[in-house]
Structures are given as C-alpha cells and as structure tokens.
C-alpha cells in the first residue's frame, strides 16, 4: 500500500519538475516550485522523516516562495524563449545521469534493514539517547546534543546569509551607471519616489494572499 503512495508521489514530482522547465511565465514557475516542495514534504513523511517534512514544507513552500515572488516583483515576470537548440546541455545531462545510474547499481536495495548505513553510529544513537539525554525525539537529541557543533555552524550560516542579503539590498538603489563607449558612467535617474507611506508596500501586488502554516 505504501509503495503505491511512494510511486504516485514520485510520478507527481517528475511531472511538476518537467512542467517547471517548460514554463515561460516565471510566476507560474515559482508557484510550481512551491508545489514541488510540498510534494517532496509528503514524500518525506512516507519515508518516516517527519522533522524533515516539517522543515521542507515551512521553508521550501513558505519562505522560498515568498522570496522568489519578492524578486519577481522587482525584476519582471517572463522568460525569453531560448535562442539556440540546447543540444550540448542535453548531452551533458544525459551523460551525468547515466554515470549516476551506473553508480547506484552498487547500492543495496531500498528499505533493507541489513544495509551498512544502519550499522555503525545509528544504533548507538538510538539505544543511548534514552539514557544519556532523555529526550524522546532522537532527531532533536542528535541535532542539539550529539551533533551540537554542526548546528552551531548552521545557525551561523543563516546569520551570515542574512548579513549578506542586508549588505546587498538594504540600501536603496544607488546612482544609475550605464556602459557608454566601454566606460561605466553615472547617469541621473528619474525622481525617486518618496519614503514608503504607511500602507504602501512595493512587493504586495504579486505575493501570495495568505500563508497558512498551521493547516
């Protein structure tokens, strides 16, 4: 029974991914990327990864979609048609896929408890977590205690990303520079609009109307 759910979700994911490649309206592509994230969250639940499903649904279908829609409001909605036939990328992709499939021929079958991955550190965590840490959720105990150093690095990475985005975007756009005869020269912009009033938000006309994370 669960194999049917698994196969159905994988097929839906493939269809969505193919639709994203062919879609020229970027707004629709971003929405379908949100669908892709939610479908993969469903697949994670089927694979017993409930923490990961939670995070993927919240981050992939929530924050990532909002940021991409905010970008689309600033840069424009549509993609130009590709000019030349993509023979070389197709070749590279098919070759890489072939090599990867050849690599997986060595892997043990899916779901077998005798796989080598389940025999080194994982039994130690599963057995000792109850006495050493006393927290029922093993993923939390591994994340925060056994591998707490990695989580500190991850928190720093998120902070660094926020700093990077602030460095790039927090000031308004600077003076406009165009390429004239091979040299970058400063050109006056039109009059800048005044500071944001209380209910003006430049990115609201495109963003999703409601984010429902507790449904």
């Amino acid at each position, binding site marked *: 029974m669960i194999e049917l759910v698994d196969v159905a979700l994988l097929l839906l994911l493939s269809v969505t991914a193919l639709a994203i490649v062919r879609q020229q309206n970027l707004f629709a592509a971003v929405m379908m990327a949100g669908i892709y994230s939610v479908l993969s969250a469903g697949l994670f639940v089927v694979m017993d990864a*409930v*923490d990961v*499903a*939670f*995070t993927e649904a*919240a*981050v992939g279908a*929530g*924050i990532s979609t*909002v*940021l991409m829609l*905010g*970008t689309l409001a*600033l840069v424009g909605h549509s993609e130009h048609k590709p000019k030349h036939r993509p023979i070389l990328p197709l070749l590279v992709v098919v070759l890489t896929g072939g090599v990867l499939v050849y690599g997986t021929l060595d892997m043990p079958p899916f779901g077998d408890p005798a796989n080598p991955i389940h025999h080194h550190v994982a039994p130690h965590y599963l057995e000792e977590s109850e*006495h*050493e*840490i*006393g*927290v029922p*959720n093993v993923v*939390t*105990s591994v*994340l*925060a*205690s056994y591998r*707490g*150093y990695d*989580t*500190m690095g991850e*928190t*720093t990475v*998120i*902070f660094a*990303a*926020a700093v990077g*985005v*602030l460095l790039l*975007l*927090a000031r*308004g*756009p600077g003076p406009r520079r165009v390429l004239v005869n091979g040299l970058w020269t400063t050109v006056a*912009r*039109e009059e*800048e*609009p005044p500071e*944001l009033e*209380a*209910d*003006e*938000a*430049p*990115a*609201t006309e495109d*963003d999703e*109307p*409601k*984010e*429902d*994370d*507790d449904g």
Partner: protein
Amino acid sequence: MDDRVILRVGAKILIPFILLFALYVQFHGDFGPGGGFQAGVIFAAGFILYALVYGLGTAKRALPPTAVYVCAAAGVLIYAGVGYLTMALGGEFLAYNVLRHDPEHGQELGILLVELGVLVTVFGSMVAIFYAFAGRRKVQT
C-alpha cells in the same frame, strides 16, 4: 467597503494562532517533530503575513528593523554562550552534562537553551531578509 476586508479580518484572526503554533512547535520539539528551525520559520511567517496584508510601513512600526537585526545576532550569541557557559562550569565546549546537578537534567536544559538560540536567529534572519526584499524600490530600467 474596502475590497481587502476579508484579507484583513482573516489575517487578524489567524496571526495570533500562527505565533502560538510556532511556540508550540518550539517547546514540543523534544516530544514530536519540531524544534528551533521549524518554529523560527513559522514565527517569521506570521510577521511576514502581517507585512503582506497591512503594508510594510505598518509592519516596520510593529517590529522595528533594528530589533530584527539584534534578534538575528543574539541567537548565535545565545548558542555560543551556552558553549562558553559549559566551559566556565568545568566541562568542554557544549557539554551540557555540567549545566545541572544531574546529567540528564543538564542535557534537557542545554537543549532548551540551544533551540531557543536557533529560534531567535532563524526568526531574525528570515524577517530581515524579507524586509530587505520588500523594502527595495523598483527601478525603472
């Protein structure tokens, strides 16, 4: 009647529950799926929804950008601070066993503090990134 009245009333009803749900996920991360990252993202989503419905200026008055930047940095400080605290109490960096009289209670307290740090940083970073994107003026090219 303003055509956004459904949106405003709906958001007004939902946002407190979103924030409460985020805190629920944070504190029940020990007993079920959840933890700092999910809770931080959901908490930020509540504020982002407020900004989307009521406007960025109103949201910036409710939650000033300075407070958001302080939150983003404070979470990393809390996390590293717990590590230094355990070193000061005699253990190694991030060895929660020395935090209380009993190793198991020490681990629980350590995990609680550390997840709190993660919540604060993820919340601050997500809202800061959203403010940066939404506050950027569109340039006529």
